[in-house]
């Protein structure tokens, strides 16, 4: 069964408990626990043992996207228990100050390809440089970001060609010119259709579209359909 679910940050920004309540009703089997904003980190870490996570066969943890150089060593220390749980640490490559400090987490780090605002991690070439430094890290392939960087999806194809074996999970949503994650339109569906066939059908998928609660099921259904075509192709090939 495909692992598919949502980021708690997309479902309810800053309120992971409510997000998990909503997701419980959707019966999804994958979740990304988001501490995208630094202030969300400690409350989420402190609550981890009490959270209702049994329904999920795949769990990822999103590391804060912004922090200070002073807080970096403490942040790395706090993330070690997450690594020990075996959860991937979704990481924005531009957030790090001292890359050496992150080496101890290297195998758990799952670097996300970035949107156009960021100075690195956007293209295949920029990602190659990051993985040159973090050889045992993996890739969280954000289809929305890749589409925003290059609407033809040629850059996305190149990223897959170069980093296919590193891809550990997928982020999916539409990303507008303000770099907001929004509902997937027909245009993005057409764009994503060009490359989903090249992504392993057992790859966990995390939806990041920020939609109203009553639209979550519709978005989940759409993403399932986009990737169902891939599964269908695999089955036909077998």
């Amino acid at each position, binding site marked *: 069964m495909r692992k598919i679910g949502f980021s708690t940050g997309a479902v309810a920004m800053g309120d992971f408990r409510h997000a998990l309540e909503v997701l419980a009703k959707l019966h999804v089997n994958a979740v990304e626990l988001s501490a995208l904003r630094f202030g969300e980190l400690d409350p989420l870490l402190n609550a981890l043992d009490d959270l209702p996570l049994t329904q999920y066969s795949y769990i990822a943890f999103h590391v804060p996207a912004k922090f200070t150089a002073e807080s970096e060593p403490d942040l790395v220390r706090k993330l070690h228990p997450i690594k020990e749980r075996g959860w991937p640490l979704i990481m924005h490559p531009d957030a790090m100050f001292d890359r050496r400090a992150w080496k101890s987490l290297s195998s758990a780090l799952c670097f996300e390809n970035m949107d156009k605002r960021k100075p690195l991690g956007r293209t295949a070439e920029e990602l190659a440089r990051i993985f040159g430094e973090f050889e045992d890290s993996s890739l969280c392939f954000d289809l929305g970001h890749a589409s925003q960087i290059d609407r033809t999806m040629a850059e996305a194809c190149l990223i897959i060609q170069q980093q296919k074996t590193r891809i550990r999970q997928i982020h999916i949503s539409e990303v507008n010119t303000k770099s907001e994650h929004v509902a997937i*339109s027909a245009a993005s569906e057409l764009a994503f259709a060009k490359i989903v066939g090249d992504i392993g059908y057992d790859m966990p998928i995390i939806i990041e579209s920020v939609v109203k609660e009553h639209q979550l099921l519709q978005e989940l259904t759409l993403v399932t359909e986009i990737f169902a075509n891939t599964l269908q192709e695999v089955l036909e090939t077998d």
Partner: protein
Amino acid sequence: MATILKTMTVSTSAIEELSGKLGKEWPAISAARAAAATEVDRIESILADHRLIPSDTSLVVFGSLARREWTFGSDVDWTLLIDGQADPNHLKVAQEIANRFLQARLRGPGPTATFGGLAFSHDLIHQIGGEEDTNRNTTRRILLILESLAVGSSDAYDRVIKSVLNRYLDDDLSFLSRSGQHYKVPRFLLNDIVRYWRTMCVDYATKHRERQGEKWALKNAKLRLSRKLIFAAGLLTCFNCHLRPPAGLDENLFDLPAHLEPLLRHLRTYVKLTPLEIVADAANSFAKPETSLKIFDAYDQFLSMMNDGEVRTRLESLTARECRSDPVFNKVRHISEQFQDGVTRLFLDDEPKLSELTRKYGVF
């Protein structure tokens, strides 16, 4: 009669206000507004069901739907307005929109290809005047200001409207009177609206020649009434910057606004109104009752005729030669003369300030 109002107090129900004031109902106008609301809801559902509004785009409708004057045989003039990255899939989405509208039995745009496809914010904002400002670009830009409506997400639409208006204001040398006590009529915008009205009149003659008189009577009726209406609404939108200025100017006589934001916001308020609402708003403030009745009675009769399938079909089939003796066309012509008379009185007779502005800005 009202003089200059201190602040702008436009109501979106200006038509209802006028109706109440005059004790007169206009059933065809009300029916057309209700029908338009239903059609907008239907289109919004089609777009949402098939996710046909990509980010950084808006589906914008023009014409009778945007004016909330939906009648029998109205077509949907639409464009997918893009204010963001160019995306090869936008064309496929636009084609899908056209297909879905066809399946829903919505009549598509006319043969000029001004509508029914993609439009880009860059041209609308940057190509005002000059060689690159084509007839199509001018039409899209001015209609965006005078009779447009975003169905579904309006983010891209709102940004483009704001930027286009900003271009008109920012490129005027000054938007305040010498005394600093009044906003001036935005002349750049006004001149473009006047130019568009004259362009419509000239194109009407050109289309008559090129299409060998096809639908002449219907086009003539529209030119005399609905096209003239949007021109009148455009003039009032500009004149209102002076006549009904944004709040705050008088209170800050010695602290003059250096930024055009209040005026920009003021214009955007009018852009959100329909042409009939703008005229009703002006009629509420500046027109004598008999003038208002002339305008709105005539327009109500026009919409009633447009909503009559037989009448509309008759007007579509009449040639220019046949019109003189045709009772249906003669009725439309009579209605249009009443409308013209009412509009003339509103702009030139009833209120001295409006008359002064019309003479100053509307002629030379």
